[in-house]
């Protein structure tokens, strides 16, 4: 514990000395740095901050130092996170490589794959997207059809993937592909890494209800993929996928507390948009909705912390299993609450400064995007299925 306190003081001092003042300001979406061959820094300070963090290995604090990570223990990483938060230090590098692929490669990849990909992710040199869902394989992920045929010295990939985040800006995609069509659907799937620059890979953006197009459909037309890009064993990709989904769900569960965007908090919005009488919100219905939300979020925060503590103590519990469901539903609740609090100022679509502030428009766009949270990464209904099956051990039909 004393060591941890010591570590905290060191981290605090280092952050204070190294985080540029501009990188302690609330950030907008286009202030984020996602790395990759096509990545550009939003500012010189962002680059400086990223490079300093990268050199410490703190873009991936818990990864092994031999691959460029920070080598911190979970407790130390938590301290770093807390100290960054209290300084309002921006996250220097975002990426699906950091959040999802990296942990999977560290667990299932071979040495060559770790050497090639982990350091590139830490250094922000490669940007990744996920190729799981297909137009015909959403919640029923295991029914995927995109196939990889064994051609002796390589795989030949044909098919398409949907909801590939920012695929048009990515360098690599990790895919679930069918390598054996003749066995039970979960047993004929492999986990493959594909270079987006390979001939035959194309992407088309998908326009969403939020007005944004952060997702693409990605097509594979006779794409040759080297054999060494297979992660884990042939036809054992489902285990890798499941492990990786755990990381995705953890990430989505924490979206409320860890959101990279500058989002209005409902209790702050209440002060701006609602009438108060004798120190209380005059509208009893909205006051009730707000207090329910604030209570929920305190409970959610405590449960994240409990899940962390339990893991550190080696205690088995269901807390982490329910957090994707709880966290994403809470995030939708928050968006609806913000709209209710803002009233007609909450439904502005565009035209910053013309009737609506940019923050008001952002809030509405985020509200639209929040609808995807309980669908992506295993819908709320899938989460409830999993809780019923894995935690409650209810009989399966």
């Amino acid at each position, binding site marked *: 514990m004393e060591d941890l306190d010591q570590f905290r003081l060191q981290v605090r001092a280092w952050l204070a000395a190294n985080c540029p003042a501009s990188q302690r300001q609330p950030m907008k979406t286009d202030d984020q740095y996602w790395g990759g061959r096509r990545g550009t820094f939003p500012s010189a300070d962002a680059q400086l901050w990223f490079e300093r963090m990268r050199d410490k290995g703190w873009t991936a604090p818990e990864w092994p130092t031999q691959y460029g990570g920070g080598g911190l223990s979970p407790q130390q990483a938590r301290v770093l996170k807390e100290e960054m938060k209290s300084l309002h230090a921006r996250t220097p590098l975002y990426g699906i490589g950091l959040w999802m692929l990296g942990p999977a490669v560290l667990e299932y990849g071979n040495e060559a794959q770790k050497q090639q990909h982990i350091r590139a992710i830490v250094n922000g040199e490669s940007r990744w997207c996920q190729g799981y869902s297909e137009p015909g394989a959403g919640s029923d992920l295991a029914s995927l059809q995109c196939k990889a045929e064994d051609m002796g010295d390589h795989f030949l990939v044909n098919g398409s993937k949907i909801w590939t985040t920012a695929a048009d800006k990515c360098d690599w995609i990790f895919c679930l592909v069918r390598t054996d069509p003749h066995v039970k659907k979960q047993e004929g799937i492999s986990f493959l890494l594909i270079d987006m620059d390979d001939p035959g890979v194309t992407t088309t953006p998908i326009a969403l209800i939020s007005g944004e197009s952060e997702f693409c459909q990605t097509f594979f037309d006779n794409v040759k993929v080297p054999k060494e890009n297979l992660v884990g064993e042939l036809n054992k990709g489902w285990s890798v996928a499941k492990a990786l989904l755990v990381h995705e769900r953890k990430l989505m569960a924490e979206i409320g507390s860890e959101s990279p965007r500058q989002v209005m908090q409902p209790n702050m919005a209440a002060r701006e948009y609602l009438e108060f009488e004798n120190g*209380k919100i005059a509208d009893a219905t909205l006051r*009730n909705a707000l207090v329910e939300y604030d209570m929920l979020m305190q409970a*959610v925060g405590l449960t994240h912390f*409990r899940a962390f503590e339990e893991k550190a103590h080696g205690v088995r519990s269901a807390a982490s299993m329910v957090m994707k469901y709880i966290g994403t539903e809470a995030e939708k609740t928050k968006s609806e609450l913000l709209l209710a609090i803002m009233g007609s100022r909450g439904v502005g679509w565009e035209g910053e400064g013309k009737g609506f502030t940019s923050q008001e428009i952002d809030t509405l766009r985020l509200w639209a995007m929040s609808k995807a949270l309980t669908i992506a990464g295993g819908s709320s209904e899938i989460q*409830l299925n999993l809780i019923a099956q894995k935690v409650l051990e*209810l009989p399966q039909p």
Partner: protein
Amino acid sequence: MALVLNEEQRLLQDTARDFLAKHAPVAALRQLRDAHDTVGYDPQLWQQMAEMGWASIILPEAYGGLEFGFLGLGVVLEESGRTLTASPLFASAVVGASAVLLGGSEAQKQALLPAIAGGTLTLSLALEETQHHNPTYISTTAKIQGENFILSGSKFFVLDGHSADSLVVVARTGGTERSSAGLTLLLVDRNSEGLNCQRTVMADSRNAANIKFHNVVVPAENVLGAVNQGWAILEPVLDRGRVAIAAEMMGCALEAFDRTVAYLKTREQFGVRIGTFQALQHRAAHIQAEIELCRSVVLQALSTVDDAPHQLPPLASLAKARLNELVKLVTNEAVQMHGGIGVTDELEIGFFLKRARVAMQIFGDTGFHKDRYATLCGY
């Protein structure tokens, strides 16, 4: 702050679970109910519980206590919530003991706490005067007359009021109506002249009373804390009570839910076990999620009493409000998922349903605590 139980606390939990399952299962409550038992709990059982140290968990060693903290108390309360055990544990060993501990003079602590710890003295808090918890709505008056106070007024929903040896009465000695200023806590012997106690029979078959005070003479030395300053003691005592009852409600919810999930795994309809139906699976899974949130809240609230009591008010309200909602949801679903047998007196699920409704009223319903939490948040 600890959100994970340590080895000692887990051991205490195992001991409590084994003991209560053996000596005080739900069947014991049914027996007390059907026998119209005048005390409403088993004094011998209470002595055994006291011998195991349960009446003294939160008390300092100097007064014969275990000094095991609220986190330790919480595991015993949770287990007693699973078995719906009727005992003075909450009213006396938590609420009464806290009032003396936080408000009593050294002499009062010396005189009362070891007896509470030993289970030989039981206390009860006489607070409520309306049908909704409202701790500053006090019309009961205590007027000074020479060396004594003269106490007059009526109290409702006094938990264990008919069986406790002494009452901690919240009375108005000053201030305006409904203000927290001018309240005074008085220790009143239950055999005092002018005290009329009517036991109430409630849905949960547990114990409470309505008590009238008509010019009851209370010696001035029986004041707990300072005259007119009772709120400074009462509020933290109530918060400790809220956290403690939340821990008991956690046990009530867990047991009702465990029994329901077990039923879903065995009951067959349409040729299959009903637990295979997604309509039931999703509702059960949602309850599991709510349970996880509530468990964190209760653990945090309990350890806040031990480690950072000045931060208690919002956490106590959070815990009571969320546990109110949890036990309501779980017990309703438990009855519904059991189907027809769920509404029979033969099945014990109904006892959980009824206990939940009474517990929801103790020291603040959901509306009370949402309002308090919002006020503490500044809106």
